[in-house]
């Protein structure tokens, strides 16, 4: 446990070292970062869109069941909007990223660790953290909020389309209700959360990868731990940020 904590401190220290140097000084490092942007961001769009759309429709369905009892069906827009933008957009995006990117980061780094590729980088005088972890951090910190924003948009849109087509709400009314109810503050708090989620997923994923020692079995073991720990910390961070938003309301 102590050596695992020491490895985490070593990782953070090396990442802080990366902050002091140009982000992508050499062209091959720029390419490395772009590759991660595409992989974390663009390649996650289909799954994020699908899950956010389904969640938007589910929320509209659930809200409609309760609200029509009190004759307040038009408030479906408010409920879908707040649930998606403040909570579920960032949270679901983070859960997808922990399973998709976090697990892949761990498996990649763990395999490289076991096959001595990380040792090889170090003895070639390449900083393995700058080469492997830093581009992942940059990509996740930027892409996680952008994906959450996209999830917000598709979730609210899908909830809206469903409400108009099935629940019989007017498109204009739904739009007005959503725009008037959602504030920039709600949107911003969701994005700050998702930035923190992205950073946590990357740090946990890469840290667990660097801890791998004993062959293929350990790669699987570390990958599982990475996903479980990421989900745990995502929920803890969510609780923390939501409490902070509540206190400062």
């Amino acid at each position, binding site marked *: 446990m102590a050596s695992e904590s020491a490895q985490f401190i070593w990782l953070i220290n090396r990442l802080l070292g990366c902050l002091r140097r140009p982000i992508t000084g050499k062209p091959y490092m720029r390419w490395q970062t772009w590759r991660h942007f595409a992989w974390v961001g663009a390649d996650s769009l289909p799954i994020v869109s699908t899950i956010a759309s389904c969640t938007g429709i589910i929320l509209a369905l659930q809200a409609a069941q309760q609200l029509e009892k009190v004759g307040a069906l038009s408030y479906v827009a408010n409920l879908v909007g707040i649930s998606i933008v403040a909570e579920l957009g960032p949270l679901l995006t983070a859960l997808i990223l922990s399973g998709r990117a976090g697990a892949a980061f761990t498996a990649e780094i763990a395999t490289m660790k076991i096959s001595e590729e990380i040792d090889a980088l170090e003895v070639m005088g*390449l900083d393995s953290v700058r080469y492997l972890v830093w581009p992942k951090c940059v990509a996740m910190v930027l892409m996680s909020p952008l994906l959450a924003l996209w999830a917000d948009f598709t979730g609210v849109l899908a909830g809206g389309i469903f409400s108009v087509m099935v629940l019989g709400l007017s498109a204009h009314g739904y739009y007005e209700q959503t725009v008037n109810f959602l504030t920039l503050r709600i949107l911003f708090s969701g994005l700050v959360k998702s930035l923190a989620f992205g950073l946590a997923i990357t740090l946990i994923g890469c840290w667990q990868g660097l801890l791998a020692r004993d062959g293929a079995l350990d790669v699987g073991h570390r990958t599982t731990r990475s996903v479980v720990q990421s989900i745990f910390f995502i929920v803890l961070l969510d609780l923390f940020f939501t409490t902070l938003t509540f206190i400062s309301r």
Partner: protein
Amino acid sequence: MSLDWTRTHDAPDIHLEDIQVGYGDLSVLKNITATMPGGKISVILGGSGGGKSTLLKAILGLLPPTSGHVWLGDSNLYALADTELREIRKRMGVLFQDGALLGSLPLSENIALPIREHTSLDEETIETVVSLKLSLVGLAAFTEFFPSQLSGGMRKRAGLARALALDPRILLCDEPTSGLDPITAADLDQMILDLKEAFGMTILVVSHDLESVFTIADHVVVLNKGSAVYQGGPDELRNSTDPFLNQFLHRRPNRNGHEHA
């Protein structure tokens, strides 16, 4: 801290000064003092679990000794600042056991990586250097192959090409012939001999392949249970009367209560 040898064509000695190395409470290497002469091929020989790979990691700067010093020429490896260590590593080439090539990059990019990191050469020159290094190990036709598409022997040769990318003054090889057929192993031995002849670098090979050792070694250090039990030339090693060395060199199994392996 002097780094003179990194700026010249000198091949430095590797000197181990009373080093102890271990993992946690487990001491793997005990009080080893040895000198691997510059410009020559030294072989660290020993059985499995004898501490060879641990010693190599200590010399690579990856595993700090709990006591003692590792000297590369006049540089005390574990007393160097990060920037100095970076300078030293530019002048060290390492061939890992299975090549340790980056699986996500083709051979050409693997060889180009240290060149891109440590020099400001333009792409055209880098390309030329890469094909030169790959030709040196007979892999010029495989530049765009990924490591997983190559045989074990080819991966080792590619690893050697990467180790040579920056024209090192020290070359360290971890079990270069293990797992190779006799012809490929002999090819690799010849390649190491040629490198010494052509570039006069200090070469340190970790091995338990006796045939290879007697073909390439100028100097041998034998490890047993974490201690250096022999240091000297290969001929004296062959004539040694030490019971463990005899057993090791003649591949005799443990019997009569001997517990050497």
